[in-house]
């Protein structure tokens, strides 16, 4: 990452990390600020960041080195494709050369590609908003008067500004995002993964919004204990569909909303009473269980994420087909998804950054609306249970042994 403080670097790093992890690339973020806090304690005032302060400079360099050591150690020991995100200001050419040099000379792993992501924000208001929303909550300012903290943080930014050199080295691979992608510059982007990251970043926005999701109301098949099929709602499922509009209205107010459903009848029927624009997505259809073979259930518990029903799909396949939906979800504002158990598990795992082995066991009960509000480090979750009975379709992870 590259950029002055309070330019949304950590937000971007976390989002990219979560996205890559979700599509199956091992990813870890190394935040130099955390190393600094651990080594020198929080509560450092702005003079610590003054380039003229030799003591501060040395300590900050130590934190940067320690984070880089851990990063290189981690990525070398990962199998297959792995991405490490080095989250710090990296705001001078000298620092960026140092990063390249460290990555180049770390022998153990032959090919380590380095890509810089710079976030530039020229709008003072947006920067102030970011300081208030994120920085003042950080451990650095725990217990400090907010006004004083904001003043101190702005001084900290000034120290970086004096030596700041935007990324423009023509021999580096980089993407520059200027004022929340009103201008994007890319240079020497190589390979599919890098180009995916660029596309992902071009779709991100930082406006406040909510994502609601709910499974369809209880279906006839749920009652009968069957999976697959395209059945209609049970009478209790219909009651749920009738109750949904009021629940959404109570928690959304008069804001705009778009409803996404699958092409299956139980989700369309569940959404039918909602007074908002609706879209159907084939990609939101339930996991295809294919042909039933008796050995399936037993085998599936060994590795539920990768287990592909014969002639059907695995959770891994579902993640792949959902990827374009997630990209579109990033672009949108308030969205309500009426979906299916396996599909919502994948979407939930994306926003809550849950690992793949836990994903197939996430609890997404019937007749419950989940609301996620994205924040800098993750999402704030609220669950609204509707008081209409439904069967429980959750199968817990079997205990080892």
């Amino acid at each position: 990452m590259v950029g002055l403080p309070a330019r949304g670097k950590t937000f971007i790093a976390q989002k990219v990390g979560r996205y890559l992890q979700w599509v199956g690339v091992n990813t870890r973020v190394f935040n130099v600020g955390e190393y600094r806090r651990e080594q020198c304690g929080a509560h450092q005032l702005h003079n610590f960041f003054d380039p003229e302060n030799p003591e501060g400079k040395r300590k900050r360099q130590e934190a940067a080195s320690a984070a880089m050591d851990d990063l290189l150690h981690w990525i070398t020991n990962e199998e297959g494709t792995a991405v490490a995100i080095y989250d710090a200001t990296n705001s001078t050419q000298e620092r960026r050369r140092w990063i390249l040099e460290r990555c180049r000379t770390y022998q153990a792993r032959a090919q380590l590609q380095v890509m810089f992501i710079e976030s530039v924000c020229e709008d003072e208001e947006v920067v102030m908003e970011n300081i208030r929303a994120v920085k003042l909550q950080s451990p650095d300012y725990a217990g400090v008067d907010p006004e004083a903290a904001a003043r101190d943080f702005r001084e900290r930014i000034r120290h970086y500004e004096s030596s700041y050199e935007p990324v423009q080295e023509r021999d580096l691979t980089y993407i520059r995002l200027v004022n929340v992608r009103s201008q994007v510059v890319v240079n020497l982007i190589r390979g599919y993964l890098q180009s995916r990251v660029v596309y992902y970043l071009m779709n991100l926005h930082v406006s406040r919004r909510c994502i609601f999701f709910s499974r369809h109301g209880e279906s006839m098949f749920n009652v009968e204990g069957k999976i697959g099929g395209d059945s209609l709602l049970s009478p209790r499922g219909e009651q749920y569909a009738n109750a949904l509009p009021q629940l959404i209205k109570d928690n959304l107010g008069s804001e705009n909303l778009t409803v996404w459903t699958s092409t299956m009848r139980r989700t369309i029927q569940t959404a039918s009473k909602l007074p908002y624009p609706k879209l159907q997505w084939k990609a939101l259809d339930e996991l295809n269980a294919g042909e039933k073979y008796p050995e399936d259930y037993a085998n599936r518990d060994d590795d539920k994420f990768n287990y592909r029903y014969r002639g059907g799909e695995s959770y891994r396949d579902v993640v792949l087909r959902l990827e374009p939906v997630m990209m579109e979800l990033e672009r949108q504002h308030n969205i309500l998804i009426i979906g299916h158990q396996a599909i919502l598990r994948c979407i939930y795992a994306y926003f809550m950054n849950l690992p793949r082995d836990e994903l197939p066991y996430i609890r997404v009960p019937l007749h419950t609306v989940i609301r996620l509000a994205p924040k800098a480090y993750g999402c704030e979750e609220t669950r609204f249970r509707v008081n209409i009975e439904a069967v429980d379709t959750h199968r817990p992870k079997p205990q080892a042994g």
Partner: protein
Amino acid sequence: MAAQLYKTESGRLFHAGAIAIITVGLPARGKTHTARSLLRYLRWLGVSTQVFHLGDYRRQVVGEKVSWDFFHPDNQATMALRKTILECALADLLAFFHTGGQVGIFDAANTTDERRKQLQERLEHEHVQVQSICDKEDIINANIRSVKISSPDYLGWNEEKALEDFKHRIENHMPFYQTINDPALSYVKMFNAGEHMVFNNINGYLQTRIVYYMMNLHISPRVIYFARNGESLNEQMDRADADLSPAGHRYAEHLKDFLLQRRAERQEETGESPRRLQVWTSPRRRSFNSACHFEFPVQVRQRAQLIEINPGDCDGMTKDEIRAKYPDEWANYQQDSYRYRFPRAESYHDLAVRVEPVILELEREKDDVLFIAHLSVLRLLYAYLMGIQEKDVLSINIPRDTLIEIIPSAYRYKETRMIIPGVKRE
């Protein structure tokens, strides 16, 4: 996701309005390559798209034989003619938008602020300017040789003479060339075939999509091959995921031998530097086992997006059985075979949405790629590469004994069909 989600009342897709794309750049900077690629991609997505190439209008008005000084901006004698040509092209572009067209690409040099201002005033639509910039002599020369000299303008010319004449044309533009620099405009600048790019004020789904596509383009030579899966033990039922039959196994061997031999021969003929080969299959047994004879350094990748079209409740049924069991569904299917979805099945259109990420990855790939896949998937990929219209996709014929070789170029891709020796004809 890419193929359209939903049509709006205007018939335009993605809830995006009409977009005029104006190319900017000196001759031989790859403008036409970009314009043609975009045309192919957007049409495949179902977006009504048209390229308006100023050179074609010029040829219509004054014919092929023009000397380089025709294009000189100070040439008073040709000024009126050049204005007429521009007006013809603009009139067609505007007519295209008025009849429901969504993306109109105006392919010309448009190298001055004045010209671009003129265009903006005439086009009341959203517009994106795409500027190709290139300062690498070798890329420019390769472009002149591969695209310009084969154009109708130089029919029957000596190659070196043509090259020289064309360079004069470029020099004519040089003194008047102004780069785009108004931050209020929506524009893309591509330097040296995508090495460095600037996107300014790119908004909305379709614009972002277009830009992402352009980012994945490259101009290095390469070849794409298509082959069907070998025969399986259960050809009727998709869900059975049956393994190859003995004949299927023999096919897999013949396919490998023939393809490797073909590549060796081509390599000798063209003298191009050798490229690696990748084989992309679906994760179905009949697909990836058809690639099992390829050995290192050929890389075989299984990709879930390439799985056969989902037949839904009709799996295992013959056409007659479907017609008998679902007469209404069958009738609807006859109306719109591309978009119609049988119960719990995928339509071709659904499949196109699923396959689209592979297309972007294919564009970016510099190795040669062999697809061994199911008929439905191959038809869609073929339709994309060869610019086949939606209504004709289901008629694309890809026999099981045929290897298709496709070589990309700026205009129409070159296709060669070859019978794989030793494979029994259907």
